[in-house]
């Protein structure tokens, strides 16, 4: 490889912007109009990486609950952006996580959500415990249970499964049940739960769809059997029939499907008698497999 020369200084580089010191000074100055501080925070994501003092000052703004919400949110996002610069940010990571743990109890719900999101993505044990505590004891909840379940989905383990199973049995709301079902998607011992929900016509459609997807993961033969039965059942609702057709059309071998004359016949009937959406899908399915 030819030896590369060092880069010459370019006379035209970045568009002119304030220095990091100026940006941080603007962001942290209470006397500056809010909108201007928010605008300056865009530069904070790069500035904090240049000097630890800038990082600390930006963190202070985020942690200060007396600051305007828009400025706190903008500074928080700037720090989240800075965290993508892995190598330079590494020296700040411990303080960043500690800051997020404090923000997990903040009075601003957006900031709590954002902090818990970051912590759960980092598989932070502190956040996981707080989220689980909130599910077991609603008075301790930092976020709504359906949100807590989603956040716990970033690092699922045994204790999360047992809480999710309880919430499927006794859900405080349909949304909670849906999110609990999603969490159990890899738990092979939950296949009976998913079969029961999928086949229950009185069950919420979204829960039935989630159950179909879960069976696809843990017991695909069962999904095939039930999906084939659902598409042939004239009393079934359109949406669940459409979900089953989607599964059959995308995830099972062409050979198996084509050979299932009974299934193909059922879908031909659906093509004639179904409502618009499922009729369209049945048409596409038959075009792919049977015509």
């Amino acid at each position: 490889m030819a030896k590369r020369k060092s880069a010459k200084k370019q006379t035209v580089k970045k568009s002119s912007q304030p220095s990091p010191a100026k940006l941080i000074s603007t962001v942290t100055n209470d006397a500056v109009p809010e909108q201007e501080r928010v605008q300056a925070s865009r530069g904070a994501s790069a500035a904090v990486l240049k000097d630890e003092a800038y990082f600390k000052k930006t963190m202070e703004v985020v942690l200060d609950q007396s600051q305007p919400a828009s400025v706190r949110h903008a500074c928080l996002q700037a720090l989240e952006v800075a965290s993508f610069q892995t190598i330079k940010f590494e020296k700040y990571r411990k303080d960043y996580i500690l800051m997020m743990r404090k923000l997990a109890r903040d009075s601003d719900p957006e900031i709590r959500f954002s902090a818990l999101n970051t912590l759960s993505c980092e598989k932070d044990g502190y956040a996981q415990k707080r989220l689980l505590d909130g599910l077991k004891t609603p008075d301790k909840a930092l976020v709504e249970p359906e949100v807590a379940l989603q956040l716990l989905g970033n690092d699922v383990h045994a204790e999360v499964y047992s809480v999710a199973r309880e919430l499927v049995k006794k859900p405080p709301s349909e949304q909670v049940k849906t999110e609990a079902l999603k969490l159990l998607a890899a738990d092979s011992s939950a296949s009976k739960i998913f079969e029961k929900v999928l086949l229950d016509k009185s069950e919420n459609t979204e829960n039935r769809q989630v159950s179909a997807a879960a069976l696809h993961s843990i017991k695909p033969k069962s999904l095939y059997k039930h999906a084939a039965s659902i598409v042939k059942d004239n009393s079934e609702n359109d949406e669940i029939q459409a979900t089953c057709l989607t599964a059959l059309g995308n995830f099972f071998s062409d050979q198996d499907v084509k050979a299932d004359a009974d299934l193909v016949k059922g879908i031909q009937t659906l093509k004639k008698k179904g409502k618009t959406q499922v009729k369209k899908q049945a048409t596409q399915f038959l075009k792919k497999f049977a015509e």
Partner: protein
Amino acid sequence: MKVEFEVNSTPNPLGRYLTWSPSPCRIRVSDPSGISGNSVNLKISSKTAGATGGSLVFRKTTSGPFSASINLTVPKSGESVPFQTAGKYPQASNRDGDVQIEAHNGTTLVGSVPVMVRIRKNANELTAEERERFLSAFAQLNAKGLGRFTDFREMHTSASRPQAHGAAGFLPWHRIYILDLERELQEIDPSVALPYWRFDLPAPKLFKKNYLGEANPLTGAVQFDSANPLQFWTTDGVQGFMRRPRFNTNTQSANVIDETATLNLGNDYDAFIDMEDDPHGYAHTSFMGPISSVPTAARDPLFFLLHCNVDRLWAKWQRKNVRYDYNSPQAYSTSPQPINHNLTDSLWPWNGVTGSGRPPTAPGGALASSLAVSAPGPMPLVLNTLDYQGNLSNLDRFGYDYDDVEFA
């Protein structure tokens, strides 16, 4: 008389995928009946199916201008004659085989081969058919969060953070990462090209239930309609994911600097790489959910379209400033870099190396291959990633292009 074609140096139909970069072709007489003399004059041209669809240009040699047709003298003996073809910018195909290379002897068609000008497009502008094919391939690749997709998930975690972020190799690493994924999608459906999320413009079609999903306004849980195979998307053993926007996905873009500002970050690489911060970092954090954090971003299918746009911005910058030669100090950083970020480093995980500054595992094995091109090879180096279009050497082209980045 009949003739047959070879496209991209292979008779295999899986090689018949073109971009804006020139592709080597050959033509030979396969049935000489009716030919008097030792050779035959043929006109090579293209024919597009329908009003939209791919279009091609041709040239006889490996240099010089392209034209809509060329005339070749082809031996009766069956010996092949080379020529080159390329997609006629900006006319990309909408479906497989929607454009044909044709050979005429006078007015008689004596041979043709269907090809596709397969181009990465703006995700918000795909046809319904393109969208459905992409979603189907993507959902099949996800394969319940198991199989080959797991490798892509495992390549982008906490442990691998330093390999791909925060230094010069950020762009090269992600270029190879999404190329690997795209080639795996093409194993499922060869007509699919990875689309890009143009995050500096509103993309209202993208964030809908029939596409990459619509977030529940209260919980951020992404919902799909019942015909969308992404409803089965599973990662880390969990079905579905959260993606709560910090902007109005129907009317606004993500809160990022726009394309012009990005391309004007500077005309040397050390300045341009600041784009990792803005727009890249701001695009990621324009949502709350797995996509907002490096260890979990690959849980969300949008992540791959986000990085397709990041790569497109690099490609545009390269074209604007002519930065394909790794020997040029403006084309890549000249300062010492951490491992996996230096020009002569082989890229983890495709190099299979673990330990000694690399993560403890190397998921996925070698980079997926393509029948259409040979580059960058199974274990690419950082320096292999710059000439992705084959501007300096046609052999170095990667087999992809963007709908708005012409061949230089």
